[in-house]
């Protein structure tokens, strides 16, 4: 048995959506006894001929005005498959109801009146389907009886609408000429339109298969809540992508902290083994390590970290009565994350009816769509919708009202970054587009770029290893460069001392410079004490997991004291103003993932060769 198909019926007002559905229900025997009688009674009271539409339009106001106001759902079964029909209103005033109906459909029928042809809502609804991510779309040309079943009329609509749909990248699975009143091409093929050789509406629906979104790249578990009913701390959420089982390593974003899944908690308890949760299931799990986790955080597998940035580029469909405006603040809800966001810039505004694009607008009006950049004081965790749809879409609220929906787009390079200590102070800045891509640079240089971040206490051998590695790389015609913390303090960081705050700032500057050099196409080796875990993880996020390798060098205390760089260790005992990380100041050794070397045991050549081996794999 094929899986259930939920489909929405959309189109311009009065184009016959409800009548088509009424006919489908009547012909498939889906209506309960009494329903048809009830509608007959209503029609008699209102002195109208029998209206199939009234089978659906249940509200008194709907029947008196003859328009669908809100969505209606009805079900029928046909040849061993269950169908759910969502009837959405075509009236422009009720656009938000149409969205509600369409948002959980697998497929859509776009209804066009043969006499009126393609109208305003025919365009807007098609745009919205594409926006909401519904790709299985069929066009039903209704009221063919009123145009004498004319093939010419049908072909004309097919050509005009087909061109429009193509621009939206919607490829209809069929165009069907129908008379719902006469039942032509609804359940069975019609003899009155023998020029049409395609399937009936029902036959076409029977062939539609729901595409599985399971092509996903990794685990996404947005945290809904944390339950502390007893001694367990159960993290609750829905798997928006991927799977999870006990023992899996996960990273909690935005902190980036790691832990392993200790258990999947269930009621009633399952007897056999430990369960694996599949995509879209609501789970409760515990971690082996007590991390601070709260609603809005995202658990991901370490191989596929989500995006993290203070900026978000998106395509927004606006339904608010008042227009969206640049510089205004709205509330954003993405999965379980909520943030106040400011509209930073509007890239372009699109009319979903004419497809006209305007590039210099300061607002987006009701029922318009636009590409924009949002920003938030604290970084967002999200995905690009093209990668993971469920964590790449959001709604915007003005006060308590939902005023728009959005889909996350791939942002420009400069927007793909988090800020730890506040947003840029400059107002009105926007990125300048680059024409040369990372691929272009890799082609010219003959290798990809990378950052090797070498951390360790003074005397661990960071500079020695970095210089050795740089030489080895250059000997292989690889463009490499060392950023040494020591050297930075003569110039870029001349204003910094050795306090904790300054060490953090030093790491931030090193990360920013390393990022620029890496974007320029180089292999960058950073030799920096960088004593704090958070600082190194910030560098990792800024530079990108795929471009970043963390190396931790260490040696026993007596070896460090013997090496005694700048006499630090011998002075530390006597002079309380000397700060030595690992001895008189904090040094947080990196937990995984990092490559660890003991430079007292392994020679420079050995350590260098091991790092070189890893780097070469990443850049070729």
């Amino acid at each position: 048995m094929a899986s259930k198909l939920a489909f929405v019926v959309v189109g311009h007002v009065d184009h016959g959506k409800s009548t088509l559905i009424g006919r489908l229900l009547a012909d498939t025997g889906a209506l309960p006894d009494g329903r048809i009688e009830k509608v007959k009674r209503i029609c008699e009271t209102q002195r109208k001929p029998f209206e199939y539409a009234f089978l659906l339009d249940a509200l008194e106001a709907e029947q008196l005005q003859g328009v669908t106001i809100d969505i209606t759902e009805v079900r029928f079964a046909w040849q061993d498959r269950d169908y759910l029909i969502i009837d959405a209103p075509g009236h422009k005033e009720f656009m938000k109801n149409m969205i509600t109906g369409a948002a959980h459909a697998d497929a859509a029928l776009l209804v066009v009146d043969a006499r009126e042809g393609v109208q305003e809502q025919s365009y807007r609804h098609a745009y919205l389907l594409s926006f909401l991510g519904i790709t299985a779309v069929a066009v039903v040309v209704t009221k063919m009886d009123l145009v004498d079943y004319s093939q010419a009329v049908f072909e004309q609509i097919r050509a005009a609408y087909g061109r429009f749909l193509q621009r939206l990248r919607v490829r209809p699975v069929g165009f069907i000429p129908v008379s719902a009143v006469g039942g032509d091409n609804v359940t069975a093929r019609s003899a009155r339109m023998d020029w049409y050789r395609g399937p009936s509406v029902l036959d076409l629906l029977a062939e539609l298969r729901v595409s599985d979104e399971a092509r996903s790249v990794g685990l996404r578990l947005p945290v809904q809540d944390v339950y502390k009913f007893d001694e367990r701390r159960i993290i609750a959420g829905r798997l928006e992508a991927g799977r999870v089982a006990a023992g899996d390593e996960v990273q909690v974003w935005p902190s980036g902290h790691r832990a392993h899944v200790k258990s999947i908690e269930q009621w009633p308890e399952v007897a056999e083994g430990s369960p694996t949760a599949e995509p879209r299931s609501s789970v409760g799990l515990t971690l082996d390590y007590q991390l601070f986790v709260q609603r809005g955080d995202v658990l991901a597998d370490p191989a596929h970290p989500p995006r993290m940035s203070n900026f978000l580029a998106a395509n927004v469909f606006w339904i608010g009565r008042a227009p969206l405006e640049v510089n205004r603040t709205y509330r954003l809800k993405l999965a379980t994350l909520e943030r106040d966001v400011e509209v930073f810039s509007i890239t372009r505004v699109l009319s979903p009816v004419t497809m006209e694009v305007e590039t210099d607008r300061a607002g987006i009006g009701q029922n318009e769509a636009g590409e924009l950049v949002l920003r938030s004081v604290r970084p967002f965790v999200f995905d690009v919708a093209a990668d993971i749809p469920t964590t790449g879409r959001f709604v915007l609220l003005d006060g308590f009202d939902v005023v728009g929906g959005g889909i996350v787009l791939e942002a420009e390079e400069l927007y793909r970054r988090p800020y730890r200590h506040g947003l840029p102070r400059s107002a009105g800045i926007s990125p300048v587009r680059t024409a040369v891509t990372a691929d272009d640079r890799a082609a010219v240089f003959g290798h990809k770029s990378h950052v090797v971040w070498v951390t360790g206490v003074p005397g661990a051998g960071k500079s020695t290893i970095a210089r050795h590695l740089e030489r080895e790389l250059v000997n292989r015609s690889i463009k490499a460069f060392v950023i040494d913390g020591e050297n930075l303090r003569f110039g870029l960081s001349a204003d910094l001392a050795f306090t904790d705050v300054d060490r953090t700032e030093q790491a931030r500057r090193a990360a920013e410079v390393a990022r620029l050099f890496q974007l320029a196409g180089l292999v960058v080796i950073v030799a920096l004490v960088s004593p704090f875990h958070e600082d190194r993880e910030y560098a990792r996020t800024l530079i990108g997991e795929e471009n970043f390798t963390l190396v931790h060098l260490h040696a026993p205390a007596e070896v460090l004291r013997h090496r005694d760089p700048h006499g630090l260790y011998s002075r530390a005992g006597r002079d309380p103003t000397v700060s030595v990380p690992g001895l008189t100041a904090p040094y947080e050794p990196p937990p995984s993932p990092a490559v660890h070397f003991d430079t007292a045991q392994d020679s420079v050549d050995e350590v260098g060769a091991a790092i070189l081996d890893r780097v070469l794999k990443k850049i070729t």
Partner: protein
Amino acid sequence: MDSLTALEQESIYILREARAKIPRLAMLWSMGKDSTALLWLTRKAFVGRVPYPLIHIDTTYKIPEMIEYRDRVSREIGFELIVGRNTQALAEGMNHTRGRITCCTALKTDALRQVTEQHRFDAIIVGIRRDEEGSRAKERVFSQRSQASEWDVTDQPPEFWDQYRTDFPPGEHVRVHPLLHWTEIDVWRYIERERIPVIDLYFARDGKRYRSLGCAPCTHPCESDARSVAEIIAELRATKVGERSGRAQDQEHTHAMEKLRLKGYM
């Protein structure tokens, strides 16, 4: 994921959203199959717990077995049970002979409003389904109510994907509908799959069974030989009789349920 599991998982997600976002929350429990399935889903969502009180709106005209069942189950599972009665209307002798719509409004709608106000609940979880009747089909998962519990059906918020309207101005409150997308058969198939104990009134005795439960004077059993959940499912697959055909208040007026629900009926 099969369609029943998909419905279950969606309902759990909705219950957890309600608990995470709404501080003062309660669930209506009528002892019927839908709210009993909802109680099961609650325990699944919260790993065995029932983290909010259950409300029973007692009109005092309920079928007697329902009250016995209520007290037994609440003892067995051990959750907080709030019984709400419109004591003033009852003292004044309210009953269905004064008009079914009048009686339903006083003993159910008004009683629910009184409990909501007394306990200052921000949201009530209700087990209604879209397939039950026309006006329920128009509902939202998170459905906003005015201070007077009224429903503005012509101006409802949009629900993009799974983003529900979980924030609302002070004074307004919300009905949460985790079973909105289920059908009557879905509920029975779920009861069968999970082996959820339900009240005996649903099973046929002497050729009759209750398909929908309510007050004794206004609820009539239907002709049936279905003595087990499996037989009920088989019966429902074949029937063309509406689920609420045994509920007299629905038949009072063409738009009776809509009118009741605009005032705050479940």
